[in-house]
């Protein structure tokens, strides 16, 4: 064997040298072009790498620059944040976003009342009590749930859930905070499930084995070991659900009924789930199409958008820091 190798050394060896020369023959200019291409490509990659920073910054700066002049147009910061009358098109327009924030809060709370317990329960079921096969199937179903477009959810709330609510509660209309809350809750379930499941998975198996070795049942193990160990991850799951709920636009636009009044009255001094509400997202969506660029109303909507951006930014940032903290520890 070695002898064949030896004999073949001479002829092809020459051609291997030739390969080297050939690369040289391609010349200085080819080589320069080649290096230039490499340099350009790496530069392009680096540029695209920071694109996400550019876009996030650009989004914030653009809406802030369009929105901030509002405060110099005779409507102060106090009116904007501390009053609840949003009458942008009346003779004497007023822009108080308090009622909108309450509306967003109401929908978010209702949604979370639904999504967090049910979502986390599903996450526990998927991660601890299912066979591999069932788990994979359920995860795919959850993924599909996440993929349904929000306008379709809005449609479902408007046409399918609305009549059901009317029949069961006797409310005048089926589009109200409860409807939007249920729909947005369903929409937030997938993210709660998947992040919650990740959090439970992040608990090392040694914890589980130790608990079961001590004779704990699965459920005891979940309650006494998994929940405390995965607490912050489950919190992050709920927070991301909140972020999703705050930012949800189309479903809310179609399901809340869009009455822009403070959903609190003297006779019933707390939020009634069957009252129509207006939210920040839905207000922007329904009014942006009709405003004159650069006008007072236009600026108010952009300022409202900035507030919305900051709210979701903080929620997502917190959730992300928590998730990252878990990964860092692991």
């Amino acid at each position, binding site marked *: 064997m070695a002898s064949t190798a030896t004999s073949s050394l001479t002829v092809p060896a020459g051609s291997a040298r030739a390969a080297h020369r050939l690369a040289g023959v391609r010349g200085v200019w080819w080589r320069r072009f080649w290096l230039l291409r490499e340099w350009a490509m790496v530069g392009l990659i680096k*540029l695209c790498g920071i*694109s996400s920073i550019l876009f996030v910054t650009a989004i914030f700066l653009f809406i802030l620059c369009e929105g901030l002049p509002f405060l110099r147009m005779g409507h102060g910061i106090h009116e904007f944040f501390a009053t609840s009358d949003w009458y942008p098109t009346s003779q004497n327009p007023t822009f108080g976003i308090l009622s909108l924030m309450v509306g967003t809060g109401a929908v978010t709370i209702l949604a979370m009342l639904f999504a967090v317990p049910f979502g986390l329960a599903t996450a526990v079921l998927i991660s601890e009590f299912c066979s591999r096969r069932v788990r994979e199937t359920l995860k795919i179903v959850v993924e599909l749930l996440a993929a349904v*477009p929000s306008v379709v959810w809005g449609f479902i709330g408007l046409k399918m859930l609305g009549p059901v609510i009317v029949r069961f509660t006797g409310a005048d209309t089926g589009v109200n905070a409860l409807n939007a809350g249920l729909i947005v809750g369903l929409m937030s379930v997938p993210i709660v499930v998947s992040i919650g499941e990740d959090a439970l998975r992040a608990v090392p198996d040694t914890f589980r084995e130790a608990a079961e070795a001590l004779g704990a049942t699965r459920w005891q193990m979940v309650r006494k070991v998994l929940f405390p160990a995965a607490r912050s991850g489950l919190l992050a799951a709920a927070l991301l659900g909140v972020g999703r709920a705050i930012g949800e636009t189309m479903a809310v636009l*179609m399901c809340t009924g869009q009455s822009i009044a403070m959903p609190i009255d003297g006779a019933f001094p707390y939020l009634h789930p069957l009252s129509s509400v207006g939210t920040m997202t839905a207000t922007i969506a329904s009014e942006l199409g009709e405003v004159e660029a650069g006008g007072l109303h236009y600026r108010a909507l952009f300022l409202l958008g900035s507030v919305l951006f900051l709210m979701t930014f903080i929620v997502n940032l917190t959730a992300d820091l928590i998730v990252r903290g878990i990964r860092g520890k692991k």
Partner: protein
Amino acid sequence: MSDPADIPAKALFVATPAVRRRLRSQRVAVVCLSLASLAIFLPLAAVLIGLVKKALPALTWEFIVDVPRKGMTAGGIWPALVGTLYFVTLSLLAAAPIGILAGIYLNEFARDNWLTRVINLAVVNLSGVPSIVHALFGVAAFVIMLRWGQSIRAASATLAVMVLPVIIVATKEALSAVPRSFREACWNVGATRWQTIRTVVLPNSIGGILTGVILAVSRAAGETAPIMVTGAIFYKVVARGDLFPYSINEQGMALSYHLYQISRNVPNMPESMLYATALVLVVFVLAFNSVATVLRVRLRRRKKW
């Protein structure tokens, strides 16, 4: 304490009342958890079945390829369907290269420093920005500042920014599955960073990247809020079955926006047409999602190393 060997083997595993109680509570817990999951999945199933049932009467080939007639209350959805294809294709043309290159940067070039942390943070937040805020950005940046007006290209650009994080994250994960030793082997024989990426890293992660792009397609197809103020229009006269009815400088119809309009703002809309439109949109989106899922499962099975 007697020697364990003296105790009959069975006695070791006798369930004491305490154990029985715990097992019972476990059973109750599992039943509760299952009921909670059912509370999520059952309505979904009910909704889907209802959707299909009510949509079927209107769902014909005519419905797909015909244009809306009689103030939307008759005819089909062709212009909206084609419009959605326009929005999706254009936004993907913009987002896919940028997103893939950004994913390459994050996985291949980024070092563990503050810049990388900021980029990762930006990606997370970009995916968390509400869609209506994207719409505001689209209006301010593309419609007004770039003077594109309300147009398909303005709307597609807005969508592109929106789906960017989906592609970035998917690309990053796909690339990180390629072993580092492959890259080192290439560097050692004098291949450049880009040559290595092009010839070895990308070909072996293309499936994962494709999954991300397909997910981005499904996301872009379903979005409504970002396009309703940047380029979607209620109605446009289009020839039946025309494949290229729009120019990118004008507004176009979109399936999602069409569904929003006909379900809220068109009186006397036949129920079955509403449901059929919703079903087409859902099928359109879920089809892409299923392809992505199948692709991912397949890839996991067929490893080349």
